[in-house]
């Protein structure tokens, strides 16, 4: 009887205990992790700026400007070449829609382009990993889309009214972005707080039984746009791990830093928020049980063992596609070496040290509830080319 020489191969992430996390599950997890980091950052923003409108306008302004400056003429030309967008597509009308649709799908925002005409574009989402962050972010994304449309406007003027008329971050079942041409629908130019209005034309509401639970790259293994151009799951995962941080963390961070009177004030509040999030991450006993199951932690690894935290941190880094190396993995000490640029510069052009600060603070506090308060987590050599993530015992009479 013939037997196969070997089992069929699929890509996975292997935990330190040999449990295999399928690539798609790793991607889903990593995407939500970025959203969780963003949610913590937005709590920092809410403390620094209590006025909803002021803080929302601030991040809208920054994200609009950043998106405008990031998308130079050559970048857009390359985008059109890459997607083979034919000449009959009026680029000024549709760039934003095509751009946005591909970005959504790379980030597991599953949905559909309902309408795609010169005068009106409607995009509906059934899922969004960022739906836990809050409505300021939903507003902010419309500012980014506005930049996408303005960039290709024939006269450089804003020609499109853009509304996120439903948003999962506001409790709606769908996210729904509608762009309507201002001259056709007689619409005024919008301010940053005007982007969550209802559109002029009625929307199409997809019924629950025809909704998606995962994006194209999850369902079909690749993203394909209306012109038949495709990106693989692998390509999209990598894209998301780079640029997923840029729009939701690095862009708003520019505005949030400005909300603090001093750098010390920003860091103080930032650390308080991320510590609280860390402490709460494993406060429920079943959270630890769930994590052990997810990582395949054997029973020999007891409750007061730092390897629990080390294995968890390594899985987070691996799912986020950050190259790392285990240097020590014992009952006494965990050391994980990582290049500082890899950790902070997920998107090479936009490194941000707040990633180190955020995760160091978060993990230092998460280990208290996941393992025990005897353990701490810190990063050594943050100013060097390589840094080491350490989990070890530490006594600090002023520990927070």
């Amino acid at each position, binding site marked *: 009887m013939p037997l196969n020489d070997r089992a069929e191969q699929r890509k996975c992430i292997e935990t330190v205990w040999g449990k295999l996390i399928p690539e798609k599950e790793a991607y889903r997890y990593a995407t939500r992790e970025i959203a969780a980091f963003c949610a913590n950052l937005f709590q920092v923003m809410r403390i620094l700026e209590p006025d909803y409108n002021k803080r929302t306008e601030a991040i809208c302004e920054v994200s609009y400007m950043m998106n405008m400056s990031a998308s130079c003429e050559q970048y857009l030309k390359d985008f059109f*070449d890459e997607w*083979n967008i*034919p000449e009959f597509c009026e680029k000024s009308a549709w760039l934003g829609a095509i751009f946005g649709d591909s970005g959504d799908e790379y980030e597991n925002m599953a949905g*559909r382009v309902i309408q795609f*005409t*010169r005068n009106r574009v409607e995009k509906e989402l059934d899922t969004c990993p960022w739906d836990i962050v809050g409505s300021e972010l939903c507003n902010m994304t419309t500012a980014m889309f506005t930049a996408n449309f303005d960039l290709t406007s024939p006269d450089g003027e804003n020609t499109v009214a853009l509304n996120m008329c439903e948003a999962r971050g506001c409790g709606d079942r769908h996210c729904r972005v509608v762009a309507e041409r201002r001259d056709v629908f007689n619409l005024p130019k919008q301010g940053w707080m005007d982007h969550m209005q209802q559109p002029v034309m009625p929307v*199409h509401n997809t019924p629950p039984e025809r909704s998606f639970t995962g994006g194209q790259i999850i369902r079909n293994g690749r993203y394909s*746009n209306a012109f*038949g151009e495709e990106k693989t799951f692998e390509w999209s995962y990598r894209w998301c791990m780079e640029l997923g941080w840029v729009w939701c963390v690095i862009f708003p961070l520019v505005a949030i830093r400005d909300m603090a009177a001093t750098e010390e004030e920003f860091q103080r509040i930032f650390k308080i928020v991320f510590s609280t999030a860390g402490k709460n991450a494993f406060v429920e006993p079943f959270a630890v049980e769930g994590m052990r199951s997810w990582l395949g932690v054997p029973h020999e690894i007891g409750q007061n063992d730092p390897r629990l935290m080390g294995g968890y941190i390594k899985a987070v880094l691996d799912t986020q596609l950050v190259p790392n190396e285990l240097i020590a993995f014992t009952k006494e000490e965990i050391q994980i070496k990582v290049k500082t640029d890899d950790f902070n510069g997920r998107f090479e052009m936009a490194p941000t040290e707040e990633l180190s600060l955020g995760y160091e603070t978060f993990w230092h506090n998460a280990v208290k509830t996941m393992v025990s308060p005897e353990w701490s987590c810190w990063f050594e050599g943050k100013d060097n080319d390589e840094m080491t993530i350490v989990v070890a015992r530490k006594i600090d009479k002023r520990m927070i």
Partner: protein
Amino acid sequence: MLFREDSIARAQHQAVRENVGWFQWTHDLVEVTGTDAGKFLDYLFVNSIYKAGVGRTKYTTMLDEKGKIIDDTIVMHMGEDHYWVSTLYAPQFIKWADAHSNGFEVSYRNITDDTVMFSVQGPNSAKMMNALLKSSVDDLKRFQVVDDQIGDVSIKVHRSGFTGENGYEIYCAKSDAVVVEAALREVGKSFSAVELDILEVYVRSLSMEKGFALRQDMFGLTPYECGLDWSVDLEKDFVGKDALLRAKEEGPKQLLMGLEFFAESYEDITQREIVYSKGIPCGFVRAVIYGYTADKNIGFAVIDSAHAVVGEKVTVGSNDSPAIVTDKCFL
């Protein structure tokens, strides 16, 4: 997406089926010239370009070395050693031509930005064209292109289209587009002609009902897998011929087929959605649309040969949308 209840899309669609409709749809255009222009195009394309005399045009696919479709075009023989290639992807075509032009006395350039094309389609399109043009189109054959005038504006008229109805394409200089458009609008009034502005109606709904696929639907398949056997001239040499001959001998592994859906709408089916036979993947969707004349949600899919049988019951996508495999032509 198009939906059954969209009365505006329905009116535009039915105008072309029952009367006449017009729209601007400028394909990318590449002008090919030189003493070897014809030979060169014959080498790039599977159809017999050499058989098209001046003023005649031909549909053809373009293959890679593996015999797989990478583009489909209309090649228009505009004059002695002078051709236009109508494609949706001129920059890609030029890259491909660059890679294969060695040894040919040929030059080519992207003239898309200089030209605008309007399409006039429907059973009454000839009447409207006769009212619009200086000369009559009554003797114009399918896949024939001639010079003509609209008022003082010089244009080219090509009897062709992508709707499955009798139709004409008007090519004019970009600087004359405003005049041509105004004339179309004015003359169209007396024929109750409808201007189409919904891309999916004139690119998908009308064409798919009649079995016309886009390049992206056929990309990566052989002409035989797309039912385009008639367009392959094996008497001449062309890029991908050896691989295509092998593929022909082996028989198609998959086929481009039609799908007819039974659900009310298709919001959960995108291009590349997986097609299942008894729960086992057997292909993938290429495009889905609502056809206003067929009154159905219809699509194209690439189906494994064993399941590419008209009447085969399948499900599509993550919500198990029921469908059956059909011929590519729905009317």
